[in-house]
């Protein structure tokens, strides 16, 4: 383990904790106890790693982006290919781990929230493997823009519940999943999809995704003989970023950069960048940076990517920001679309719109790098799911 956080109450500095209705405390404590025991259990760990290898297809390659490197001409750009995982994103690392927890706890019913649908698909996938009853909550706005993923979940046997309350996006899906959990607390396991929510979720989701960072340590050594100079990842809730950052937290020479969604621009207020333009608050069980108004009400968000369209962020990111161990920047929808095309044309890779945020930051980052430096981008997911959105945004006739 690279640091001892969270503390016993689930805090990373002042962030995190368990701010939940009393009925949920029992389930969170039960989960925490089970996880603390199982993470030291050899059978559990070998089952997890066997699934990662044989079902997910790990390790994901570290790939040298030759043309992007030549284009920027100021440092080597490497891609950590989470887009090549089964189901097309890093999300599966977490669901493979959490479904094992559910199995060990004897839970028969699985629930999850989803924004872009990637976590919903990853959850429905692992639930199908174990033949468990699976319910996915998804905002009706997201159901519209991610209809392909909705159908995938249904193919996998999950029931998809459309959520119409509030802004009908990811945050409302999370509200509804929490309400389901409060009601069905004894037989239900809630697979949260990011490093958000009450303790112990931010820790569990980070640990299951940290396989990405641990692989990167070995692969960097092998590919260029040392650790990277910079690691860049997009941040919505922040699970792909936390997974790749975590093993590097103590390696102070490795710069960690999280890229948030600036939407139409930070200055317009229409974005999804709480670390850049938010303040500490409590949402969905944890204290963290939050987009909120002067009354403490949660503000609406705007982003081209459904997966980043969330007003909060994982508490560990808030802590890394405050102690200045990681740097958090934001890129606009327009910058993202430009990067999306560039990665397709220059590397033959179709990145998710979420992932394209990380690529978009290269325009700012690369001019500051030197030729002998190494930059790693976490390619968190592939973009097949976004083709409908892109076609619509660019008003293309197919």
């Amino acid at each position, binding site marked *: 383990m690279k640091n001892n956080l969270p503390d016993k109450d689930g805090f990373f500095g002042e962030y995190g904790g368990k701010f*939940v*209705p*009393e*009925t949920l*405390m029992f389930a969170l404590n039960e989960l925490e106890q089970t996880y603390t025991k199982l993470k030291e259990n050899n059978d559990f760990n070998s089952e997890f790693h066997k699934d990662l290898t044989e079902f997910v297809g790990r390790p994901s390659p570290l790939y040298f982006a030759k043309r992007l490197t030549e284009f920027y001409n100021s440092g080597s750009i490497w891609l950590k290919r989470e887009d090549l995982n089964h189901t097309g994103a890093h999300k599966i690392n977490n669901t493979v781990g959490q479904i094992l927890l559910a199995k060990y706890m004897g839970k028969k019913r699985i629930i999850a929230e989803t924004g872009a649908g990637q976590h919903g698909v990853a959850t429905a996938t692992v639930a199908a493997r174990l033949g468990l009853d699976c319910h996915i909550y998804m905002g009706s706005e997201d159901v519209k823009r991610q209809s392909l993923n909705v159908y995938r979940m249904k193919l996998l046997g999950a029931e998809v519940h459309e959520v119409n309350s509030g802004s009908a996006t990811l945050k409302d899906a999370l*509200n509804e999943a929490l309400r389901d959990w409060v009601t069905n607390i004894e037989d239900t396991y809630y697979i949260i999809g990011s490093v958000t929510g009450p303790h112990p979720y931010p820790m569990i989701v980070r640990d299951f995704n940290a396989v990405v960072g641990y692989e990167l340590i070995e692969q960097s050594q092998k590919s260029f003989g040392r650790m990277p100079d910079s690691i860049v990842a997009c941040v919505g809730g922040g699970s792909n970023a936390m997974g790749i950052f975590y093993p590097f937290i103590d390696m102070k020479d490795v710069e960690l950069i999280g890229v948030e969604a600036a939407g139409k621009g930070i200055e317009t207020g229409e974005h999804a960048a709480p670390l850049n333009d938010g303040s500490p608050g409590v949402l969905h*069980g944890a204290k963290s940076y939050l987009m909120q108004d*002067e009354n*403490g009400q*949660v503000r609406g968000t705007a982003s081209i990517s459904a997966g980043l369209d969330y007003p909060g962020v994982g508490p560990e990111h808030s802590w890394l920001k405050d102690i200045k161990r990681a740097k958090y920047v934001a890129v606009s929808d327009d910058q993202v679309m430009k990067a999306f095309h560039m990665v397709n044309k220059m590397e033959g890779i179709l990145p998710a719109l979420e992932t394209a945020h990380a690529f978009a930051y290269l325009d700012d980052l690369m001019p500051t790098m030197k030729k002998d430096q190494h930059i790693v981008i976490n390619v968190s997911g592939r973009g097949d799911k976004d083709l409908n959105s892109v076609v619509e945004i660019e008003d293309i006739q197919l």
Partner: protein
Amino acid sequence: MRRIEKKLTELSKNNLKAFVGYIVAGDPDSQTSLDLMHLSVNAGVDILEIGVPFTDPIAEGPIIQQAHDRSLENNTNLESIIDLIKRFREKDNETPIILMGYINNFLTYKDLINTSHESGVDGILVVDIPGELSLKDYGIDNQNLDIISLVSPTTAQERIQNIVNNSSGFIYYVTLRGVTGSSNLDGKEIAQNIEYIKSLTKTPVMAGFGIKSKDDAKLLSSFSDGIVIGSSIVELIHKNSENKDFHEVSDYISNMKDAIR
């Protein structure tokens, strides 16, 4: 003596159970909320629980969620709610008032909460924190307010002692696994759990969540010091808020009050 303690002592002296009634401040509008507060008290509510609207009320079922949304559309915030309570106190200085809401709103207005007793607030109930959490650590520190905590059917016995030590006014026993306005009350389990809480504290215990009918109210009041009703009242308010004739609300409260006598 504080208003909550005074009211509950009085009721118990007369062998009566307490009726805690919940409405969302600002639904349908602030002036009507003021009228509804007085109307509820006249119809039989002993303690008023005033809902503070939040954009993401995870413990509420659809009825109360929608009331929060309506209230937020009217720009209700904690300042306007404190103002509402001040106006209520011009005519009623007896009925205890509790603010019920979510931690993020209370933290945003902690200075206001710390002086809210001056405006006539008697207690706060924060729905989304565990009962042993110390609000003082978060800057909410007002010795003049009662801090009401929730205990639920799933609360581990070893935690209940800490929760009751951290509470005053009354303990709010959540009668079911679910959000506000759900159904399926388990009388036997509720009776046992309330008995256990009462073995640990002299603080009165109210039962709430999922009470709809007179039978529910009668059953739950038989082993508690009183009942809390929210969703049913909020629903009736909404149903009649167009013509603002709230006699249905008044009748409902009187009926429930009769049921717990």
